[in-house]
């Protein structure tokens, strides 16, 4: 007996409608090398044997003793209260409720999250969260296309290269062209997106200009000027921000951003390969109907009591079907709750301390390497908590240090060939002076 709801004829009709010959053709994008030749389920094991096998696999993880790796994900202190809150069964077991109004506690927690993100970004409305920073950014680009009725987007090369790859993928379906605006990579240059370069790429066919603050290279971008370039062409300005930096820097909403996106991981979520992380998105109220994803609103019930609802659901796919603002987004309610608990625990002063300590330690990293004659800052101008440093023979030494339990940041030539022999080193409030001494010593030993 088959449990498939589709007959052979159903499947043939669906394949014909989308123009592929067979179901296998749908998986053409996945290289043969990484596909399973056949699925073999191993024989059953005892509980004891499973524990032994899982321990063996776990022991293959290499936990660095000292790490300066950032490049989009940052290791911050996660207060114990965050785990306590998200571990509560009322929250931990709930996906976004599909009968939402009976879950007032969940809706309130999402509403508080949205309020915090609005306050951080200086924007008027925030979504209930997205999958991660990259998908939130790609959704922002498509949102800009809907708002402007234009079909090209311009993205600064200072935006995380992983985000730009996701953006390309998202834009390939609807036929949106992605134009990359180069960054000034000259030795000792600004390492930022020059407004003059951006204005050459942004014309009246471009829906938005996307730039990151700080840039992937840690440098501070001229956001106000880039926003002006976008607006002069009738395009929107999308700011991709690092959330802890907002405790120190001008809020993107005050810098001309029309849409703000971010990876929320630094807000109380541990750095781990593959996540889960959380995407943030905020915008102007005038564009709320083109915002993707869920939105929680506050209202009053028939007796005048405050309550929370999933609002403006008419944008969403369970009502608008194929005409929804997005059919490919999801949210990360539990991780959004972690960010909410984190921001509530540290407060405005705590977040500022995190940002200040991170920037101070990043400067210690740069000056310690320069003082030891091991490397020099690759760019000039202001930077946040991550610094690009020119180090001779960087690839070999990066690998040698990893063997010694020191991750010397991110090797930038992996993403940008013009940045050979450049390490991108991140610091946070968890970066100790001893860590920095260890980096200097280990790097010195590989001369």
């Amino acid at each position, binding site marked *: 007996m088959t449990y498939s709801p589709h007959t052979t004829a159903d499947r043939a009709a669906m394949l014909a409608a989308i123009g592929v010959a067979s179901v296998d053709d749908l998986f053409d994008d996945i290289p043969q090398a990484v596909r399973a030749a056949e699925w073999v389920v191993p024989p059953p094991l005892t509980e004891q044997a499973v524990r032994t096998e899982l321990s063996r696999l776990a022991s293959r993880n290499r936990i660095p003793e000292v790490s300066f790796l950032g490049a989009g994900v940052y290791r911050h202190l996660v207060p114990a209260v965050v785990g306590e809150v998200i571990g509560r069964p009322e929250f931990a077991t709930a996906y976004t409720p599909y009968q939402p109004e009976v879950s007032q506690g969940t809706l309130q927690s999402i509403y508080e999250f949205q309020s915090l993100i609005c306050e951080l970004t200086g924007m008027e409305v925030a979504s209930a969260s997205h999958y991660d920073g990259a998908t939130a950014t790609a959704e922002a680009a498509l949102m800009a296309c809907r708002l402007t*009725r234009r079909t090209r987007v311009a993205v600064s090369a200072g935006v995380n290269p992983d985000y730009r790859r996701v953006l390309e993928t998202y834009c390939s379906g609807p036929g949106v062209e992605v134009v990359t605006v180069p960054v000034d990579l000259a030795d000792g240059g600004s390492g930022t997106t020059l407004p003059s370069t951006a204005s050459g790429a942004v014309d009246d066919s471009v829906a938005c200009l996307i730039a990151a603050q700080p840039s992937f290279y840690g440098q501070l971008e001229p956001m106000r000027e880039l926003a002006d370039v976008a607006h002069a062409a009738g395009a929107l300005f999308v700011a991709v921000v690092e959330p802890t930096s907002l405790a120190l820097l001008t809020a993107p909403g005050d810098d001309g951003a029309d849409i703000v996106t971010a990876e929320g991981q630094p807000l109380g979520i541990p750095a781990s390969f593959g996540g889960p992380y959380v995407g943030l998105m905020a915008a102007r109220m005038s564009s709320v*109907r083109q915002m993707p994803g869920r939105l929680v609103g506050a209202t009053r019930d028939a007796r005048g009591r405050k309550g929370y609802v999933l609002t403006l659901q*008419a944008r969403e796919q369970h*009502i*608008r079907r194929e*005409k929804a603002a997005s059919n490919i987004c999801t949210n990360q309610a539990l991780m959004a709750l972690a960010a909410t608990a984190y921001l509530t625990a540290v407060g405005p002063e705590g977040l500022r301390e995190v940002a200040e300590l991170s920037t101070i330690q990043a400067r210690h990293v740069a000056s310690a390497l320069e003082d030891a004659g091991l490397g020099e800052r690759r760019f000039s101008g202001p930077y946040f908590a991550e610094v690009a440093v020119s180090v001779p023979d960087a690839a070999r030494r990066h690998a040698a240090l990893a063997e010694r339990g020191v991750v010397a940041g991110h090797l930038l030539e992996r993403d940008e060939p013009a940045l050979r022999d450049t390490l991108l080193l991140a610091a946070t409030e968890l970066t100790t002076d001893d860590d920095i001494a260890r980096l200097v010593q280990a790097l010195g030993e590989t001369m």
Partner: protein
Amino acid sequence: MAYPDDLRYSKEHEWVRNDDGHATIGITSFAADELGDIVFVELPEVGGTLSQFGTFGVVESVKAVSDLYAPVSGTVVEVNEALRDAPELLNTDPFGEGWIAKVDLADTAELDSLMDAAAYAAETA
């Protein structure tokens, strides 16, 4: 229910008033009543072109979101900006203050494919 005699009507419940090739379009009182309280109208762009029975905007009520289907082909020369702040005009005065767009008709013969008031009244009876 009686409908204005000087208009032509589509099966999708839009109306069109032709004034010598310059047309005004909107949704009917029947459509507005069925939708309930209208809270948002996504207007077409001035300068944009409409094709008959193609979608040209969206109307959102507390009950549903519906596409607007152009009753005629043509070029949009004006949209009812008042609807941005007062979408309820579609409920209160659908054939008057609640007009949606003004269009230069591409082909007046298209009007013949639409219903007159009597036929539309029969359609919605």
